[in-house]
């Protein structure tokens, strides 16, 4: 039977609890948002004693279902002040699921100014004081833990940014190659730092296979599902070849590649930072163009990027990071961006928030546009060392905008707007505005239908159909985020009719239940409403569902503007 592991950092106690009946059918985002909603006062300080940090594997994590190894992390966000769920690959979701850990809930704050570590086994959680690894980077923590335990140990860790409770701090998760995946967005690393936990290790000894109610049905559905992923040209081939960075050229051509802190929709240096160039570079240097973030992933969108000598620089080198420091900061050098990415992983900051912040910092005059070497120095020596400037920068894009009086600050609810200009990709603008998470492209990836022509086509430059598109995608995403599935399964799910029924069949076979497609849609709707209720109780209204004023300016080449009325945006919530 699955259990809840609960850790109280105030009195340094731990306990194992039964799973309440109301939580039994939930996993991933559905479960973290339900627990945060039930147990965290919405008006609490995100870094205070009443916030809770929750980890939950997806409903299918730990099974043989393809690409199902995503872990959700939830809390009230210190960056946005809203509820937050951030999911990541790595090895922990599968470990949790096989160890029967339905969720880990961390509450309270230690009274003494000491740091601790948590160690999870099938028997429960132990707490130990930590001194040696304080101030150390995430790679060093992973290395030390593998030396202390073994190569199989699961690790979730924060770098110096998390220790210093910076709002852009993330939580790093060890991947199957002992490198790093991240619970990136929303400052979950600061919440972990506030609870004075440097790292969490997971020892899976004694774990059993995840129980499957109907193994034959599960196996059959899993086969159909994996085939659908592999048959779709994007998930089966494109992502594994070029990674997500294939989008640089796509968005450049479409005029939706935010450039120079969102002034233009095209970047003259696009070819140098494109997925095609990156693929050629990786192959020429003997790196790995194809790589999975968790065992059992068949999409393999990650890659290992090496330097000219063939030495590891970074992996999971994503479009959003490359866009953010590339086009948005006008840095046309992939090696500089890769080095910055690696340092961001090591000190533990979100690479989207940090890249968007750098664009604002360039407008503020802290550094010139295009200065990749100074970006690297600022991340390493200012943010990484926690200098006064570093703390302002580590607070994210809005923090720098506030400190320097910049009005061109691309954020919604305090969170940096990612790699698609909302004026020329209007559907994603609706997602940025309305998401319960602040500006988050993954919450309802309208880019698929606006630009990639997956799941049909809705013209990215027209308002018609965008609210409905974003609504449908956000509902579906909330449900998918609860299964432990990678969001990229949405590409085959939108185009291949057998894909979604196979996913539902797997859920039914796993738990011996009989969900229908409508039930899954209802689950997605319920999660969004629950999250919105938390935000409303925290003081958010529909007036926070808006993009910054400067998006009224036209963006070349299409000279598109953000032209939705308040009523049109608010209609998003009509469900």
């Amino acid at each position, binding site marked *: 039977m699955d259990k809840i592991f609960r850790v109280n950092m105030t009195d340094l106690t731990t306990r194992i609890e039964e799973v309440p009946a109301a939580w039994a059918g939930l996993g991933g985002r559905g479960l973290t948002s339900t627990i945060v909603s039930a147990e965290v006062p919405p008006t609490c300080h995100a870094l205070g004693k009443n916030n809770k940090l929750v980890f939950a594997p997806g409903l299918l994590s730990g099974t043989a279902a393809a690409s199902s190894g995503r872990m959700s992390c939830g809390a009230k966000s210190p960056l946005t002040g809203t509820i937050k769920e951030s999911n990541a690959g790595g090895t922990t979701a599968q470990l949790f699921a096989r160890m029967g850990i339905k969720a880990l809930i961390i509450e309270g704050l230690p009274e003494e100014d000491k740091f601790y570590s948590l160690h999870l086994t099938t028997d429960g959680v132990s707490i130990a004081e930590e001194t040696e690894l304080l101030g150390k980077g995430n790679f060093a923590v992973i290395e030390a833990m593998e030396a202390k335990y073994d190569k199989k140990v699961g690790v979730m860790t924060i770098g110096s940014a998390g220790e210093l409770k910076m709002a852009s701090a993330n939580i790093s998760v060890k991947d199957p190659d002992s490198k790093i995946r991240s619970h990136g967005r929303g400052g979950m690393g600061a919440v972990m730092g506030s609870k004075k936990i440097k790292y969490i290790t997971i020892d899976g000894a004694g774990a059993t296979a995840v129980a499957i109610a109907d193994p034959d049905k599960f196996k059959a559905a899993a086969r159909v599902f994996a085939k659908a992923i592999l048959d*779709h*040209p*994007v*998930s089966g081939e*494109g*992502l594994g*070849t*070029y*990674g*997500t*960075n*294939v*989008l640089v*050229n*796509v968005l450049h*051509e*479409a*005029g939706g590649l935010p450039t120079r802190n969102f002034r233009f929709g095209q970047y003259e240096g696009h070819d140098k930072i494109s*997925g*095609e160039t990156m693929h050629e570079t990786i192959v020429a240097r003997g790196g790995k163009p194809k790589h999975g973030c968790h065992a059992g992933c068949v999409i393999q*969108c990650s890659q290992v990027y090496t330097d000219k000598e063939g030495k590891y620089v970074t992996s999971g080198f994503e*479009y959003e990071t490359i866009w953010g420091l590339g086009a948005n900061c006008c840095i046309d050098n992939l090696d500089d961006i890769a080095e910055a990415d690696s340092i961001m992983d090591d000190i533990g900051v979100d690479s989207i928030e940090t890249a968007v912040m750098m664009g604002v910092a360039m407008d503020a005059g802290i550094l010139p546009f295009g200065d990749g070497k100074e970006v690297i120095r600022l991340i390493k020596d200012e943010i990484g060392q926690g200098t006064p400037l570093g703390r302002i920068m580590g607070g994210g894009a809005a923090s720098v905008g506030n400190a320097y009086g910049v009005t061109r600050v691309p954020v919604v609810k305090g969170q940096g707007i990612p790699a698609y200009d909302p004026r020329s990709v209007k559907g994603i603008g609706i997602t940025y505005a309305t998401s319960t998470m602040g500006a988050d*492209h*993954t919450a309802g*990836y309208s*880019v*698929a239908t606006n*630009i*990639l*022509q*997956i799941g049909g*086509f809705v*013209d*990215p*430059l027209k308002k018609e159909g965008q609210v409905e598109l974003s609504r449908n995608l956000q509902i579906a995403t909330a449900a998918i985020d609860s299964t432990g599935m990678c*969001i*990229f399964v949405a*590409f085959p799910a939108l185009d291949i009719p057998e894909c979604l029924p196979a996913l539902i069949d797997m859920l039914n076979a796993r738990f011996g239940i009989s969900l229908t497609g409508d039930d899954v849609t209802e689950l997605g709707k319920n999660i969004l409403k629950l999250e919105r209720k938390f935000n409303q109780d925290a003081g958010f209204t529909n007036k926070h569902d808006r993009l910054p004023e400067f998006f009224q300016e036209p963006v070349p*080449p*299409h000279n598109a503007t953000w032209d939705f009325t308040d009523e049109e945006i608010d209609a998003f919530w009509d469900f």
Partner: protein
Amino acid sequence: MNITLKLFATFRQDRFKIEQRDYPDSILIRDIVAELGIELEACGIIMVNGRHALPEAPLKNDDTLSLFPKVGGG
């Protein structure tokens, strides 16, 4: 008329990245795709001057035609 052709991702293999070509005024996008030896079904995104276009659409002088296979990310 003069058309700029831009190819991306796998479409570049054994072809080119960017080329200017001269075509008769009556040419349709599908004709150019066929001339390039690309299956129409393999085209994920067709853009003319940064706007999505259908294969049946005509072109005009100095247009830029961009062709992508089915790709995605996020």
